[in-house]
């Protein structure tokens, strides 16, 4: 089609050129027309190109990608355990992501003995592996562990990535998570989220006398660390951008307060000295300030406090309950929950306060909004007709999508890459809450392993 229009423009050009050179008589015009026709005939005789079958492919296979992960080689027999451990952690990570299908090692034909040479690709094609990860763990002279890996494109017969890491042997879990992130990113084009942690409220004891402890663990459930002893009730922990500090709400003897907890030094302090209950805290994206709700009488408003100067700024001043604030990743806007319109709904306003714009308009009430680290989505809890659903919507409130529904789902938090949402589900009765993850596509819902009941999760940014 393009060529035809090109042809017509070409022809009109030639006519206008002709009219400049020659007086435009009918005869000359006829001559010109004939010449143009002749030229066109000459042009045509160039011959057609070889026929090519062209079409668009708009649908692919949403099945997870088969990937082969043979055990990493060990430099010495004593490293065998950590070598195997690393490949097992990578396998588990990729499998849980729902985007990869690690192939059973028993199916492997080639036994990898050297990671520095190309694998025998046909052997891996035969078991339909699209990608292959080989690696080796060796102990350095100074006692450190060296872990290296190579990611191979089995059908393209090329190496896609190769990297080596040095670390103390105790850190092999983190190395495995970092390698998982590398593989994930290289194959999906999306940042990984495996080298990250979860902070949550661990719940033990009977229903009447629940002991709630602030707890931190790796995103895969390993390395559980209890941060508080359970003497006080804790709620809504949130990570700082550096992942070293946590802000949460706690109440022991006195009124509920927002605290700051340093995971390295184990120190904690009260944020601000407010007359009244403070709750629902969250860090700003730069980690310098904390935004929270302050209750005054029957309603609550949003305040932001600078952690260094302790300067406090009031952001809202309404006769309603404004709570659950969360910054956009660039720190320019805040989404929060407010019942100023009657029922709790999600609003967005500038980071400096001012008028707010309601974005949620569905049936029921919306709460606990949280902004995706990618900035394009807001996750929320939606309540209506005895149902608590976890959903996502665009930041303009459009394209709302419910990810999971049922009795008492609450408190969504995004993975560092914004592709996975974690939340907690309390089935009621004698059972307690547990943590779940689900893709923003609504697929791949998985329970997160925790030592006992768990609620109020918050996902850290990437550690590296």
């Amino acid at each position, binding site marked *: 089609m393009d060529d035809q229009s090109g042809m017509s423009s070409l022809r009109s050009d030639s006519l206008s050129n002709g009219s400049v050179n020659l007086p435009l008589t009918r005869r000359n015009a006829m001559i010109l027309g004939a010449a143009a026709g002749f030229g066109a005939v000459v042009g045509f005789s160039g011959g057609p190109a070889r026929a090519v079958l*062209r079409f*668009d492919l*708009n649908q692919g*296979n949403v099945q997870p990608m088969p990937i082969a992960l043979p055990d990493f080689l060990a430099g010495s027999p004593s490293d065998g355990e950590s070598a195997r451990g690393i490949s097992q952690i990578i396998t588990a990570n990729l499998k849980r992501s729902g985007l990869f299908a690690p192939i059973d090692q028993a199916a492997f034909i080639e036994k990898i003995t050297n990671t520095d040479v190309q694998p025998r690709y046909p052997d891996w094609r035969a078991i339909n592996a699209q990608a292959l990860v080989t690696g080796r763990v060796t102990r350095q002279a100074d006692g450190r562990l060296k872990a290296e890996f190579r990611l191979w494109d089995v059908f393209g017969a090329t190496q896609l990535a190769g990297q080596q890491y040095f670390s103390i042997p105790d850190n092999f879990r983190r190395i495995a998570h970092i390698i998982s992130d590398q593989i994930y990113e290289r194959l999906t084009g999306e940042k990984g989220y495996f080298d990250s942690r979860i902070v949550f409220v661990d719940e033990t004891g009977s229903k009447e006398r629940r002991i709630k402890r602030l707890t931190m663990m790796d995103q895969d459930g390993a390395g559980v660390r209890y941060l508080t002893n359970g003497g006080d009730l804790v709620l809504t922990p949130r990570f700082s951008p550096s992942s070293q500090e946590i802000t949460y709400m706690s109440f022991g003897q006195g009124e509920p307060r927002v605290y700051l907890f340093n995971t390295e030094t184990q120190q904690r302090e009260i944020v601000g000295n407010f007359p009244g209950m403070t709750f629902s805290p969250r860090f700003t994206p730069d980690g310098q300030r904390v935004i929270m709700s302050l209750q005054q009488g029957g309603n609550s408003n949003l305040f932001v406090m600078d952690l260094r100067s302790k300067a406090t700024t009031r952001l809202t001043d309404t006769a309603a309950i404004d709570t659950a604030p969360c910054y956009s990743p660039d720190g320019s806007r805040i989404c929060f929950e407010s019942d100023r319109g009657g029922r709790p709904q999600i609003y967005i306003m500038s980071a400096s306060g001012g008028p707010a714009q309601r974005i949620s308009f569905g049936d029921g009430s919306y709460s606990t909004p949280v902004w995706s680290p990618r900035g394009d989505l807001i996750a929320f809890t939606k309540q209506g007709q005895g149902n608590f659903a976890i959903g996502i919507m665009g930041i303009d409130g459009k394209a709302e999508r419910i990810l999971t529904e049922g009795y008492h789902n609450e408190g969504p938090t995004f993975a560092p890459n914004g592709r996975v949402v974690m939340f907690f589900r309390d089935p009621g009765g004698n059972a307690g809450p547990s943590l779940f993850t689900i893709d923003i596509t609504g697929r791949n819902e998985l329970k997160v392993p925790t030592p006992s009941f768990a609620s109020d999760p918050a996902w850290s940014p990437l550690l590296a």
Partner: protein
Amino acid sequence: MRTGYTISAIGHALVLAWGLVSFSAKPFEVEPVDSVSADIISERELSELTAGSKTAKQVTKPVPVVDKIGEVKEPKDPVQKVSDKPEVRTATAQPPAPSTPDVKPPEPKPAAVPPAAVADPPPATVAEPKPEPDPIAEALKREEAKKKEEAKKLEEAKKREEARKREEARKREEAKKREEVKSDLDRIETALLDKRAPQRQTVTGSMVNPTPSLGSTTGNAPQLSQNELGMLKAQLMSCWNPPVGVSEAKDLVVTVRFSLNRDGSLSGEPMVVNRGRNTLFQIAAESATRAVRRCQPFRLPASKYEAWQEVEVNFDPNDMFHG
């Protein structure tokens, strides 16, 4: 007049020369217009397709494929047999008279064998007369024997021939089998090296035999559902794992061009036609070429080889994740 001719001649020459130069320098290429290919089949063909395969074994009714056959439970007979019911007896009723047993009179014992019969008859002492040799009869007998012999020989030859034929057939069969085994060797080797615990999806009941049967009204022959473009598309779709990161990026379309051999295998490497700068494009391009490589050999009708010798595919995942 002469000047007129001159001007005309020069003008003509100029225009022709200009036309030659300008048009041949930019040859006009006509984009082949995509035609919608459709398979035209006759009514007979359609009925044959829906009727199922002609060579299929005739089955009286569709045989359900089951790996496990459950216990056959006899349905309980809702109506009890009348005779099973206990007989109703009233107090006033007379006890049934003891039926006189129908005693048969003892059968008469077989009469004792007369002792005379037991004794052996005295051996005959009279010598039998020796038959006279008859030359004609003898000759006839010989003839007969000869004929019999010949018939026997013929029979044996026939049998041998048959045996030979059977042997040959058997040998042919074996050779064929060997050939099959040889061609399957790679597959078998792969299977042997696969040390996974064998898994088997067992089916109990409900799944109907998918093999075509002669004359089933619901027969679905594969040819009917898709033309070759659809087949090619379906094959590529199943091979393509679009990376999730790519799905989010708008307008990230990768165009891959590849040529195929007559057997459906790739001839040469697939080529990415368009270009992108970022790493995301690279990942998208890798996934697209991987799909093409994985998919070979493509199953396409060899008779239309000209139509699919060169293929250019736009891999566009945008619709996939927003549906």
